């Protein structure tokens, strides 16, 4: 026991002592401490590193890759996958999987098409109905999974096929429904005015920094924990602020923040709030970590599972909405192809575990940016589709391997660090 204990008491043991060095050494020490603090907490770090590598590589291949116009374009391309990935993450955190998200996106897009084009239903009502249908389909599958105990892989595999059939049936023989609605088209076709973008950024950055400062001053804990906490709680907000300002600058240098991307960020922020700060969200992690322990602690495990699948269905419908808006139609291919697998890939690349209990909603964003970045970069360098698939496959494998190896080394390092402390 004492070895784990010692490791926990002295988390800074692995770093060189502060006294031995000049300001440069101290700076390096601080940077290492910060990196280690972020690494120990966030699982998205390797993914962010790959994002940087992708950016550098494709920029060296094509001058256009890091241009504001292309980055804006890339953000919109990543949005659909990211929304589906977010839906996947909700159930992945439980240790479940949902294979029907693509089909649900397709069905709900078809429902939207029928409502708008054939039924002349007002756009907001049509959107509400399509989201409700997504929630209902997700809840239906969740019921089989949570109340009857059927594995989610099987239920959602059946759902994937069944809902695809439903989608084709709704679309009928003509196969495609055009959706000419300016409001729905605006979801993916418009941008925020630059000034509004900056005001929004200023508000968010202020909120993030205030929160961080409060966390740093309020950090309390046992021996030696202080410094890590302070660095951790200030380091991350500063990084987030820099990323936000940078992103807004890039978007505004093009045409402004794309509305679809803003919707995605909004969903991610809500998802982050729910998963990190509310009890249902924390219970999601508890069930994913140890369902039986959660049940014995009085957590309504079945209800949590059901709601998670309903939520993931709703997010699939949101993806269907974005797809329908982007294409101006709902077709037999909407939500099909490799969308689902790319979304699962994005979630996993971003650092969400397939085995439940570990991950973050932000991995949807990071992972889908990687997937879209690679696809976009290969397009720019005139690579063919076969190459694209193969490269994406390699990236999924490498990203997850890197993440796994890093985590293993980290936990081993901690145990060993304690052993000779």
């Amino acid at each position, binding site marked *: *026991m004492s070895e784990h*204990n010692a490791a926990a008491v002295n*988390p800074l043991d692995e770093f060189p002592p502060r006294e031995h060095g000049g300001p440069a050494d101290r700076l390096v020490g601080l940077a290492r401490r910060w990196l280690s603090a972020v690494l120990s907490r966030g699982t998205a770090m390797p993914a962010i590193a790959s994002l940087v590598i992708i950016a550098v590589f494709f920029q060296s291949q094509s001058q256009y890759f890091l241009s504001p116009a292309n980055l804006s374009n890339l953000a919109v391309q990543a949005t659909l996958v990211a929304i589906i990935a977010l839906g996947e993450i909700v159930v992945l955190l439980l240790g479940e999987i949902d294979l029907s998200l693509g089909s649900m996106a397709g069905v709900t897009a078809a429902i939207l098409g029928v409502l708008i084009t054939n039924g002349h239903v007002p756009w907001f009502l049509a959107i509400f109905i399509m989201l409700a249908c997504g929630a209902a389909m997700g809840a239906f599958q969740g019921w089989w999974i949570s109340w009857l105990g059927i594995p989610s892989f099987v239920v959602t595999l059946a759902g994937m096929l069944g809902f695809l059939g439903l989608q084709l049936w709704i679309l009928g023989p003509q196969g495609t429904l055009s959706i000419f609605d300016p409001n729905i088209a605006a979801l993916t076709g418009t941008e925020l005015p630059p000034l509004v973008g900056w005001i929004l950024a200023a508000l968010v950055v202020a909120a993030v920094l205030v929160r961080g400062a409060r966390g740093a001053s309020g950090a309390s804990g046992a021996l030696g924990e202080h410094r890590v906490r302070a660095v951790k709680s200030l380091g991350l907000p500063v990084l987030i602020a820099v990323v936000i300002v940078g992103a807004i600058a890039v978007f505004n240098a093009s045409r402004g923040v794309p509305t679809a991307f803003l919707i995605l960020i909004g969903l991610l922020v809500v998802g982050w709030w729910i998963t990190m700060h509310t009890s249902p969200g924390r219970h999601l992690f508890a069930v994913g*970590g140890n369902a039986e322990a959660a049940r014995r602690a*009085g957590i309504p495990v079945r209800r949590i599972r059901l709601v998670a699948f309903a939520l993931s269905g709703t997010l699939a419908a949101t993806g269907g909405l974005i797809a329908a808006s982007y294409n101006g139609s709902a077709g037999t291919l909407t939500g099909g192809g490799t969308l689902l697998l790319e979304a699962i890939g994005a979630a996993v690349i971003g650092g969400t575990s397939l085995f439940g209990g570990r991950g973050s909603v932000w991995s949807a964003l990071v992972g889908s940016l990687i997937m879209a970045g690679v696809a976009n970069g290969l397009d720019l360098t005139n690579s063919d589709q076969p190459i694209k698939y193969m490269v994406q496959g390699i990236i999924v494998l490498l990203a997850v391997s890197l993440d796994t190896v890093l985590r293993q080394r980290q936990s081993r390092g901690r145990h060993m660090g304690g052993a000779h402390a």
Partner: protein
Amino acid sequence: MLNGGPGRRLVRRRPASPPPDAALGGGEVLRVVDVTKWYGGVQALDRVSMSVDSGEVVALVGDNGAGKSTLVNVIAGIITPDEGELYVRGERLAIRSTDDAALHGIRTVHQEHTLADNLDVVENLFLGREMYRGVGPLRRVDFAAMQKRTWAALSDLGISTISDVRASVAMMSGGQRQTIAVARATLETYPIVLLDEPTAGLGVAECQRVMELVLRLKGQGTAIVIVSQNIEEIFEVADRIVVLHLGKVGAVFRRAETTPEAVLGAVMGMA
């Protein structure tokens, strides 16, 4: 039992803490009458009856398969008995879920499945009973307050083996994990605490720590049921010893009036 969740109670009432008057005041707190449980063709419990007074430690001993864990799980609301009655403070209850049990002031420390490995000490300690701040959509889990309470609880219990309460419990030793599990039962004053082999797999010092926690709970007037294989340990804390043999109550001893040899004899069915 597929997925075996708690009963389908849609409205969940979970008191912040059990009624304060329920904890103290002597007399019988828990009574189990003629509890019977079949697993398919196997009878795990055969008309088992027992009772626990406030401030009393009752040890359940018996060989593997004697029905100790089944009995604890029945009281804890995890297993529904086929027959039998359960009384808490003289009131007959139907405990169908862990929630029901918690409502009636019963807290259980299980042998396994006690902690979620991916969560930290604070979250595990408060699992299912989180503290909140804010209202409406801004109502959120108050990690700072929970962390403070955790430090207070740990120092109150004399637990000095846990130095970072925001560290994930996956990295902790069996002893640390078990102290967290037991500390959970002491976070609020529960009139009844069930401990299912709380020292299984622990080292000597760690066992001692857990036994100290048990005696502390007893001192607070808690009625305690402890399952253990360790006769020495039982003679250290128990007031009464109930021996289960093949699903039946084989014998009941008062610690002061018996010897480990007599108890062992009963465990082996020689009483």
